[in-house]
């Protein structure tokens, strides 16, 4: 009988050794935390998008980046749970809403004016709690087999017409769509926003999980038209080739072409020393900004930069709405509105 248990004994012994090793290592690391040349970044941007830039930063400054990647909102919730024990120095968020939520809770320090002044005024917090590192525009994507570019209306209200019934796709549970709705509320008022949502809802849109699945659904021809961020299309074309049957347009002068940011804030618990400052400074250098433009097909956030990317429609040519991003912090109101019209 006991011979039969041999495998169990071995497994048990291994588990115990590994656990003791792990706990030991954890305590060793905790009590010998004297490595001065490190900063910790909680990044809502995925490693594929931002990792290479962290490596470059380490290469140039010798400061190591401890990056924890995750969903932007989940990381914000994590920081709130950690309270004063948060190991994070910097929160790198996918959208302004999450940074705003942390600022409201008093969890962000103000950033030095030296850095803020480099950034386009629309892409930073007026109180200086966060700044945008890159911009992304909202666009309308369409299936080229089903819709001609000329048929598309030049503003979001055009899609409320009955001819679009059963042909639209949206992602009401997605953060960037909600930011767009908040912008719509700010720009046109609660009543108009509600009217738009109700009319679109009456057109019976497909309800997608996020930007990626919206573009994918439109490429299959399930829906003809959808509302997403501008750079997803470029990813699909890179993977599937030029004959990928989706293209995009910018609406004019309304929330449909708003510019949102990916950006950073410095946590209240961070020592905010030279290493943290170096990090903020690095993200605004021409090198980092060109990385966002060339590799991620995003817009730069600093004021003067030569953009040489044929995929990107230059910012000056987009008739983006005049919108202060701090005003789009009221996600709760957006959630209520989306629930009220039955979109959520």
């Amino acid at each position: 009988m006991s011979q039969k248990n041999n495998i169990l004994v071995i497994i048990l012994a291994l588990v115990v050794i590994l656990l003791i090793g792990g706990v030991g290592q954890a305590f060793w690391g905790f009590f010998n935390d004297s490595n001065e040349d490190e900063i910790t970044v909680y990044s809502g941007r995925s490693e594929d998008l931002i990792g290479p830039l962290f490596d470059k930063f380490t290469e140039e400054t010798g400061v190591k980046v401890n990056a924890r990647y995750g969903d932007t909102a989940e990381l914000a919730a994590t920081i709130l749970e950690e309270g004063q024990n948060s190991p994070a120095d910097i929160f790198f968020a996918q959208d302004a809403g999450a940074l705003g939520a942390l600022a409201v809770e008093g969890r962000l320090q103000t950033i030095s004016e030296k850095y803020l002044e480099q950034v386009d005024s629309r892409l930073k917090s007026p109180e200086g709690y966060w700044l945008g590192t890159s911009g992304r525009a909202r666009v309308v994507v369409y299936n080229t087999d089903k819709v001609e570019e000329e048929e598309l209306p030049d503003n979001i209200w055009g899609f409320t017409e009955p001819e679009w019934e059963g042909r639209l796709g949206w992602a009401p549970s997605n953060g960037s769509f909600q930011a767009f709705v908040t912008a719509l509320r700010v720009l046109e008022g609660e009543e108009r926003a509600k009217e738009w949502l109700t009319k679109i809802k009456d057109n019976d849109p497909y309800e997608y999980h996020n930007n990626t699945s919206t573009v994918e659904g439109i490429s299959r021809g399930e829906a003809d038209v959808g509302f997403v961020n501008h750079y997803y299309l470029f990813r699909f074309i890179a993977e599937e080739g030029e004959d990928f049957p989706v293209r995009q347009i910018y609406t004019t002068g309304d929330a449909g072409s708003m510019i949102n940011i990916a950006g950073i804030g410095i946590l209240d618990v961070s020592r905010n020393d030279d290493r943290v400052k170096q990090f903020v400074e690095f993200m605004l250098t021409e090198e980092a900004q060109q990385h966002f433009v060339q590799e991620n097909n995003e817009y730069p956030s600093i004021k003067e930069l030569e953009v040489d990317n044929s995929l990107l429609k230059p910012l000056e040519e987009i008739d983006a709405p005049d919108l202060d991003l701090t005003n789009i912090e009221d996600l709760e109101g957006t959630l209520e509105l989306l629930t009220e019209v039955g979109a959520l």
Partner: protein
Amino acid sequence: MEASFLNLSAKIEAVKEGQISWPFVAPPFILIPVIFIALAMSLPLFYLLIRVIGAEDVWSLILQQRTLQVLLNTLGLAGAVTATTIIIAVPLAWLTVRTDLPGRKLWSILTMVPLVVPTLVGGFAFVAAFGYGGIVHNFFVNTLKISYQPEIYGFFGAWAVLSLLTYPYVLLSVRGALQGMDPAQEEVARTLGKTLWQVFWQVTLPKLRPAIASGGLLVTLYTLSDFAAVSLLQFDSFTRVIFLQYRSAFDRTYSAVLALILVVVTIIIVSIEMLTRGKARYYSVNRGVKGRMKRVKLGKGKVPALIFCLLVVALALFIPVGVSAYWLIRGLLQGEPAMLRWEAAFNSFYASSIAAGVGIFVTLPVAILSVKYKSKLSSLLEKATYAGYALPGIVVALSLVFFASNYALPLYQTLPLLIFAYVILFLPQAMGTLRSSLLQISPNVEDAGLTMGFSRFKILWSVTIPLIKSGILTGAALIFLTTMKELPATMLLGPTGFRSLTTEIWNATTEAFYTRAAGPALLLVLVSLFSLGILFYQEDREI
């Protein structure tokens, strides 16, 4: 010696008859670990209570008609998925354990692996295959010239995807029970002239009841807590409401209220499952040595049996694997880099193996207590262990973020804490299989040990554990596979810079890097196949 044994045995008998409803007759090597485990398992509950206390207008939130409507939707989905998985899994288990099905070993492993496919990948693949303009639709429209409108969204899609990805819970549980079952009774029934069908229906199936119920319970609770599949398939479920609160409103109070509702529902469901257990005996009284099993000859039934296995494996495994492979090849042809980080595969394998080992080690005392020292308190403890499993992973992860960063900072974001999280999340999975194999042991066998003067620890080690080995293997496999695909706890609680296959997949899919997502997805399936192969090779040899 003789006297004290009789005394003890009488006590145990009294506990079994329900006369003593107090678990403290259990030996300390069972009782003490159980108390620690129950405390650990209750951490998420404490956390939710902390968040809810002091919240305003909680009742108006709870009583919103929408909240209740969505909860009912979700329960309906959970019921349908559970029934479907039982219909798929019981025949599969019987075919792969009890019959001479050709390629039995291969089928046993292939039919388990869908459990490791993350619902996000499974959901994406299902839509890409069956949706409008998907592979199947295009084939019908372009090749067969039949046009139709695929209706995959809503209840149907969520039901199909969740059923296909979760039936292995029931399968593994029932397989474990079939292997532990003494075939003598079935053979007796056969010699008494019962047909194969009658034997299965009247002898085998009733004895499988606890295994089916415990596997079904896992499916029900999984369906309640899943987010990715329902979101991709556009089904309005309760977890989606919880996620919206976290993701959009950063509101931890309302989401805690909703999560507590989920806990209450879970406790009701677990209680119902416990009621169905009844008082039946599942062991054969005279059993000491397991009889040699004769395999049922399928004869002409082989062809339909093979078609059935193939159909299930094709839908649940080949489609996600095929679609991932398609993404990989398509991207590579366009010159996209395929990123394969072996480190991620190793981390997933390593962390999941430890979680499986620790999980079995801590579940065993709880299972023994609930089977051998049944009482009101022990069944309450058992219910508490299910709470972590029915909660969405993000809720459990955040509760551990809160406790560890505030009260156990040196352990925060280390591997031991991550393993601890896995155990809290997945302990119930081993619970069911261990329970049902313990139920199959006749108490006479253990009592015999006592008469020989062995200590109770010695009996546990040399009598009980070898007899429930198949239950242990199955439980370990369940924890291993589910840990392999776990995402939220891995992201928030893992050591900084810890990459697993699931974080790699998440990393790529959120930004539409399909080519980069495909590599880790395929690797996940491959590593799991390989590990299960090793784990079950031995088992198959023994039969």
